[in-house]
């Protein structure tokens, strides 16, 4: 009984210790083997800690083995790479954020084209350009948020407070009313068109029934004669027009009686003077009629 107690307690404690060790290692590393070490160096403030993943071209190939704080503003970081992976020479290391919870990973970026040589255990991987951490991203988001707030404030002022929104509403209402009216007009036009088409069909039906070739022939002949007369009339009008143009050209050139009449201002001046003299003469006659009209009967 006593021995059984000891065995059962021993089994329980052993199992618990194994679960504890393996579970902790698995949670910290993602796997149980340690892998070979590589070293790199980052500036302070990277939120790095033991157990964070190491990615090679986006693939998880290891974990952060150790982080040592230096006094000169840098962190010495030992990363452990799984034995099955090799890191190409010339690869650079950077700390990049993973997910939205502020966790980070060490990202190894191989050069393109990928060289055949690889880092040996214990080599140092040079740090590459740092990726934006979650703080920087949040700060950019904050900036965008502030800009959006300003924009929304401006829109509020311009659209809501300045009455633009009301105007837009009115315009939309007017457009709606106009649309209704247009629909009515279109409906009416549609109805008229339908009636016209019906009349046209009706007339076409009549025409087809009245298809008398003699009448049509005489009508066409009359139309031709009318057309010929029209053409002749147009020709006469054309020649008349030409003559009138010539006449006008002559008149504008100032030659001839009409030309001089139109272009020479002397006639106007003389006529004007004559009219004034006539006015003064008429006025004088009205004032002194006896001077000019002397009627003697006897």
């Amino acid at each position, binding site marked *: 009984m*006593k021995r059984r107690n000891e065995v*059962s*307690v021993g089994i329980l404690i052993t199992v618990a210790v194994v679960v*504890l060790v393996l579970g902790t290692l698995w*949670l910290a590393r993602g796997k149980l083997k340690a892998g070979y070490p590589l070293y790199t160096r980052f500036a302070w403030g990277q939120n790095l800690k033991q*157990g964070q993943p190491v990615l090679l071209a986006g693939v998880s190939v290891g974990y952060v083995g150790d982080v040592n704080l230096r006094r000169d503003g840098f962190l010495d970081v030992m990363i452990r790479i799984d034995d099955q992976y090799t890191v190409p020479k010339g690869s650079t290391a950077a700390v990049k954020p993973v*997910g939205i919870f502020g*966790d980070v990973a060490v990202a190894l970026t191989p050069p393109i084209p990928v060289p055949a040589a690889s880092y040996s255990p214990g080599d140092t991987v040079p740090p590459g350009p740092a990726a934006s951490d979650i703080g920087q991203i949040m700060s950019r988001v904050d900036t965008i948020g502030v800009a959006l707030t300003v924009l929304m404030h401006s829109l509020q002022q311009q659209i809501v407070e300045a009455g633009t929104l009301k105007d837009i509403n009115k315009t939309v209402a007017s457009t709606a009313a106009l649309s209704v009216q247009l629909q009515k007009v279109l409906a009416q036009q549609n109805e008229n068109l339908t009636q016209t088409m019906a009349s046209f069909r009706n007339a076409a039906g009549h025409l087809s029934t009245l298809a008398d070739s003699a009448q049509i022939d005489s009508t066409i002949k009359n139309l031709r004669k009318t057309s010929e007369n029209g053409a002749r009339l147009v020709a006469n009008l054309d020649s008349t027009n030409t003559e009138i143009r010539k006449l006008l050209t002559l008149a504008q050139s100032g030659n001839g009686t009409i030309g001089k009449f139109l272009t020479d201002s002397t006639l106007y001046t003389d006529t004007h003077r004559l009219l004034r003299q006539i006015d003064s003469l008429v006025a004088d006659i009205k004032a002194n009629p006896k001077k000019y009209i002397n009627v003697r009967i006897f």
Partner: protein
Amino acid sequence: MSGPLPQFGRETQQFPVVQRTSIRFFRRVTRWWVGLFRDVGVRSYFVRDIARAMGDPATYVPETIRQMKNIGVDSIPIVLVVAAFIGGVIALQTRYQLFPGVELSIIGLASRLMVVLELGPLLTGLVLTGRVGGRMTAEIGTMRVTEQIDALETLAYDPVAFLIVPRFLAATVMLPVLVILADATGLLSAYTVSVRITDVTPQDFITGLRLGFGTFQVVYSLLKAMMFGMAISLVCSYEGYITEAGAEGVGRSTARAVVITSMTILVLDALTAGVLGPLLQT
């Protein structure tokens, strides 16, 4: 020296009503504080006796193994069942409360943090308070009221070394052991429920499970378990050790032990979170 007696020598009943009431109130408060300090002092003596009894391993080692079996091995089924249900429920509730757009890996993270840091040790402690602590008080209390403890003393056995120390050591060692299994079972249950019942993929869950993990989280969990084990064994053994007044006293001691231990565990949990919680952020 003749003359009237000073006022403090008078009977309480002889004082006016207002003064009499104040005197009784003051006396009650004083007794409460005196009782509290007395309890602290008596328990300190009890702890001192345990420490002194540690120097007699021949008396307590064999019994310790038996108590480890009682406390540890026999408690495995209930601890694992509780942990499995808690892990599964945590995973389900976390998944159902998530709003769209949140990464599903948070379920693994939340399960790990809740199971390992809080519910694993706490629920194991509370469950063992009922199962182990009650039994401890009842056993020792019965031995007290049936004068078996007195008989041990008569036989020159140190009852503390024979009865208390094994339970104290066994609870202190086995609680962390049970918490390790409870944590593992809870996480396994959370993983199974998440992957089988919800739309969480194994990769999502494992990513969250490993996110921001530090070994101190495990140390924190085991430290709490160890403190809970100590609290259970000390409080329950003491309450059994001072049991009086027959079978009724045993029942009363058992009930009081369970209540005091449960409260102690919750207070210790809060204190641990307040004192050691900041270290979890590193």
